[in-house]
């Protein structure tokens, strides 16, 4: 998701531990009874006073598209 979004010019961070040495999903989300896929699928987005309404609208448009494309690659059905 981070790469997909960065190609669209949106920079966010993910809960995917794939980039770190420890291949574990967020222990916090797991403790909140989230499933592994959900814990790995978390993203972090931050806003600043410099963001405009149209910036946010742009993210709202391209984020669902990105989620849809990444899901279409995955072997899991139904999200």
């Amino acid at each position, binding site marked *: 998701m981070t*790469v*997909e979004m960065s*190609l669209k010019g949106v920079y966010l961070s993910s809960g*995917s*531990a*794939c*980039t*770190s*040495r420890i*291949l*574990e*999903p967020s222990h916090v989300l*797991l*403790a909140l009874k989230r*499933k*592994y*896929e959900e814990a*790995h699928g978390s993203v972090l987005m931050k806003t600043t006073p410099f963001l405009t309404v149209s910036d946010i609208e742009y993210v709202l448009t391209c984020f669902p598209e990105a989620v849809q494309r990444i899901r279409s*690659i*995955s*072997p*899991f059905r139904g999200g």
Partner: protein
Amino acid sequence: MSSRIPLAYNPKVLELFKNPKNLGKMEDADVEALVGSRACGDMIAIYLKIDDETRTITDVSFESYGCAANIAASSIITEMVKGKTLEEAWNASWKEVSEELGGLPSVKFHCGVLAVGALRRAIRNYFEGKELPPWIPEKLTPDERHALEEEQLMEVLTKKMERMDERIAKEEEEESQEEGGKEKTAVPL
């Protein structure tokens, strides 16, 4: 090395991430293998169509749940082995996968290993119930083991969560007992 260092993906990886080749589930596959685990956040499914006489891979496809390198590595391995014999495909190494991709970042080597592990497990599945050819060792190769280890890690994590749940339940029980005790001492006052 920490995750804060930006990953330097080369253009080939990004291109395959954007436009993966041989993507999708193969409904009429002769063999398939699903490796990795949901817990690790990277999984690869490989589907093979095999000509029984020539033992050649006539068609291959993949699905991937993982990062950009994972998608690129599984995509490139399908391109590398299409039309190859099973023996040639078996001998594809993760280093070749990395080279074909123009070099993977070191933290992403495991993606290449997982792609090779997926392919090898699919090939091994093909020989299930058949005589194992001499080029397949009876013992699992490190790549296959890697694919399995991720599945085992899933089990370890599940057990860890169960233990955590038990501890929380025990603590809650102790707390409620303590509160009960306080109430009793409160009565004489």
